[in-house]
């Protein structure tokens, strides 16, 4: 219990510091009274979008690791974020045409990218599940995820080249592809908040099944878990969380892999204790990385994914090494 209090105390303290840092860091001068409120509002929206995206990715990471019983899985490792990015790119490319043709008349234009991103993540996870069906080999999952990510990135690059014919569309697709939370508005915050609250609530509801699923499909099934349904809904909610995060922040790598590993030693492996802590830690991590992008480069926006990638890649290698040494899963 002491450990739980210490964890939550630390998380809330650090989150408060990161939010304050995010509000007071940037190119705009808060000393100018006429612009102060505007700057703070823009930075608050940016902070909320970043926090929500990080929380979504971290919760999605816990879900993916439980569903594949693989400690090295994460939304970016299994191709979900690449699939979501491709979905968002295709939505940008084809969406305007659909609206112009009246096919998507009932759809608000700003909903096209989130829907595309969620559909892309759902497609990627379903394809992965199909490829690795029946295999418990972590290497198999990693290789299949790598293959799918590469495929989606290649198609995405093609989509990007197609978009260059129109300057505005080209800029929009490029900006979405590079990712980041700069200039995010209330609509983005609403999207990521919806994805997070729905995904986290669903994950908490399924948590007892996910706990038992850590014993493998056969044992879970004989203990009463509906393995197929748990996995199917887990995939759907992972897609909602990954798609929501990518729609707002773009392809932010490694958050879903690193954050659950960092939190498990303190929160334990039981999902109802782990998930809320991981959500806060994911938000904290992304907001901190976003502040770093502003500190490192003030004139040009450094993509958020670059910072998370620079931190995440070496940590991923460490985890891979540790996992090979211990032969364990889920820390």
């Amino acid at each position, binding site marked *: 219990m002491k450990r739980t209090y210490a964890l939550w105390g630390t998380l809330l303290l650090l989150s408060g510091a990161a939010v304050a840092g995010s509000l007071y860091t940037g190119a705009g001068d808060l000393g100018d009274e006429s612009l102060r409120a505007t700057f703070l509002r823009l930075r608050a929206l940016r902070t909320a979008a970043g926090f929500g995206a990080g929380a979504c990715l971290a919760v999605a990471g816990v879900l993916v690791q439980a569903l594949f019983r693989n400690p090295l899985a994460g939304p970016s490792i299994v191709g979900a974020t690449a699939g979501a990015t491709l979905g968002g790119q295709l939505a940008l490319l084809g969406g305007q045409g659909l609206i112009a043709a009246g096919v998507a008349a009932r759809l608000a234009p700003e909903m096209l990218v989130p829907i595309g991103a969620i559909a892309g993540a759902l497609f990627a996870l379903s394809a992965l599940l199909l490829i690795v069906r029946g295999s418990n080999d972590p290497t198999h999952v990693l290789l299949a995820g790598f293959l799918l990510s590469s495929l989606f990135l290649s198609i995405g690059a093609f989509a990007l080249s197609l978009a260059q014919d129109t300057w505005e569309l080209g800029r929009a697709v490029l900006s979405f592809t590079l990712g980041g939370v700069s200039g995010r508005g209330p609509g983005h915050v609403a999207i990521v908040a919806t994805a997070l609250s729905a995904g986290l609530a669903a994950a908490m509801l399924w948590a007892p099944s996910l706990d038992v699923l850590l014993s493998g499909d056969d*044992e879970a099934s004989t203990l009463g878990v509906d393995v197929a349904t748990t996995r199917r809904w887990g995939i759907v909610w992972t897609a909602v969380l990954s798609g929501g995060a990518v729609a707002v922040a773009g392809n932010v790598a490694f958050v879903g892999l690193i954050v659950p590993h960092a939190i498990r030693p303190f929160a334990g492996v039981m999902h109802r204790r782990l998930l809320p802590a991981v959500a806060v830690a994911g938000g904290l991590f992304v907001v901190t990385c976003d502040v770093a992008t502003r500190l490192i480069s003030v004139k040009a926006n450094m993509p958020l994914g670059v910072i998370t990638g620079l931190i995440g890649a070496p940590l991923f290698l460490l985890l891979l090494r540790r996992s090979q040494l211990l032969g364990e899963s889920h820390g």
Partner: protein
Amino acid sequence: MADALTLRNLRVLRGSHVCVHDVSWTVEAGTVAAVLGPNGAGKSTLLRGIVGLLPAQGSAQVLGRDVATMSRRERARRVAWLPQESALRTAMPVRDVVAAGLFARRSALGGLTENDAGGVDEAMRAVDVASLSTRPFTQLSGGERRRVLLARALATGAELLLLDEPTAALDLAHALRFFDTIRELTRLGRTVVCVLHDLNDALRFSDLAIVLHHGRQVSSGRTRDALTDDVIRSAWGVSQSPDAAARFDLLESAR
């Protein structure tokens, strides 16, 4: 006495291949029954077929109810299965592992009730893992893990326990204690069906036995009747030694 398990012409399949052929066997409630046979005889496959992990034809009834007609949760409340080797590779605290046995009895939102917690404690005490309560599962020895999983099976409260080589990783004292525990369970009305390799253990601790060879039922009945010289010779290709096997008993102080 009522029948806890009734198999009628049960065939267990892996894909289109029939691995266990037409087994018919009845296990009375409150008994210990052994599933015996050489390696590859189909012992574990038979248990997997009964518990619904492999497709099966024919019928398997638990206390008069066909397993195939039970919902997943009902089956989990009536039949517990201990696998030969668990797939759990997580640093989950022992108490949480054992509490997973209650999954089918809990609502989706509910935590452990006082009654549930008592059941978990009792199951842990029964197999001597109460002192390991907060230890991560991954830090336990093979024998300790086995006992924790056995506690999980006990915590389910199921009337029928299907145990696949339950004593395989246990030291002598814990193996004897295990047999004491299952004997006690049968006195309380539960029925235990376990795959055993040691025929001496089967003769000493089980009431009933079935012998399988190449997926076919060679004999069944009271253990001493099922394990005749002819059966042992034909199934295992060995003969009984005229020397009595070494016999060990648990000290009173260790019970």
